[in-house]
């Protein structure tokens, strides 16, 4: 189980990365992250929304109200141009941390 602090710190790159794939809405973003992390990353679901609004305020994410297949109103988010740049910068930073730790611990991650 990933700690609270690390969960909070990683929420930003995770959201940006999920949105880089396609436009998406809150519930689906949470489900996607949960599945991809194999249940290791447990978000308090409501917390996604203040984070989304912050990203929107910073101009990294754009939103629109649309309709779901069942006809319900739904807020969709997508990456803006500066969001894509922010994702690149996040990537570099996380890779730098990852490489440093890997060097220190002398292990190579097994990705099989």
């Amino acid at each position, binding site marked *: 189980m990933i700690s609270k602090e690390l969960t909070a710190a990683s929420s930003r790159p995770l959201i940006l990365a999920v949105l880089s794939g396609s436009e998406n809405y809150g519930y689906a973003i949470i489900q996607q992250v949960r599945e991809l992390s194999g249940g290791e990353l447990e978000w308090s679901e409501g*917390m996604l929304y*203040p984070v989304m609004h912050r990203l*929107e*305020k910073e101009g990294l994410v754009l939103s629109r109200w649309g309709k779901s297949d069942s006809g*319900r109103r*739904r807020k969709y988010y997508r990456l803006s141009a500066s969001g894509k740049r922010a994702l690149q910068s996040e990537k570099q930073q996380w890779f730098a941390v990852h490489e440093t730790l890997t060097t220190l611990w002398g292990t190579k991650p097994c990705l099989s």
Partner: protein
Amino acid sequence: MFELDAAIANWKNQLTLDADIADRQVEELEMHVRDAIEVYTAKGLTDREAFIVATQMLGDGSVLKQEFRKVHGSAGTATVVYWGLVGFIGGKAIETVIAGISRSASTTSALSGLSGSVAGFMGVLAMILCWSAVLLFLWRRSFLHTVRSQPGYLPRTWLAMLVIAIIIGSAVNTAAQIGHAQISAATDVGTSVLWLGIGNAAVQVGVFVLGLGLLVVIAQKSQPRVSP
């Protein structure tokens, strides 16, 4: 029998009260809960169980409040200023209209040959009738529509300060007017009343225009601008 829509409406209302979250944001959270309920009921949970799990997973209202505050903190202040201004402008508008009606009633009575005290009484009567109509209207509205305010919650200190301000203000105003009429000659009082009246009207219009302008500015600023 568990009514899902009623439960969700109730939960939304509670969230608005606890967390002071804007309607748009609550709507987004509601859609999240409805999505989650759909998933849980498809897995075999009852509506009631699915609702409980979905709302629990979403998290505590007070914690959400803190997070939303961090993002929309300035919007919260703007909202307070906005509604303060709406109340002020609205109150001023009603007050001015009623004062006009009251004065007209009083003057019409005086012109039709009634004595000064009766004319004064007619003005007061018109004022009482108008305010009764306004209060009755507000009272009916507040019962016909859901009031988004915590039951039993009143900002007591503010209310008390307002009441005291109104009492002191009216007392000072009346004393000043009586004093002026007693000390000065009738024509002087008449002239001063004339200029006060004109000045008052100008100031009221100015306050309206500036206040409305400010309202528009705040309303525009508090809307998150989303470019396509």
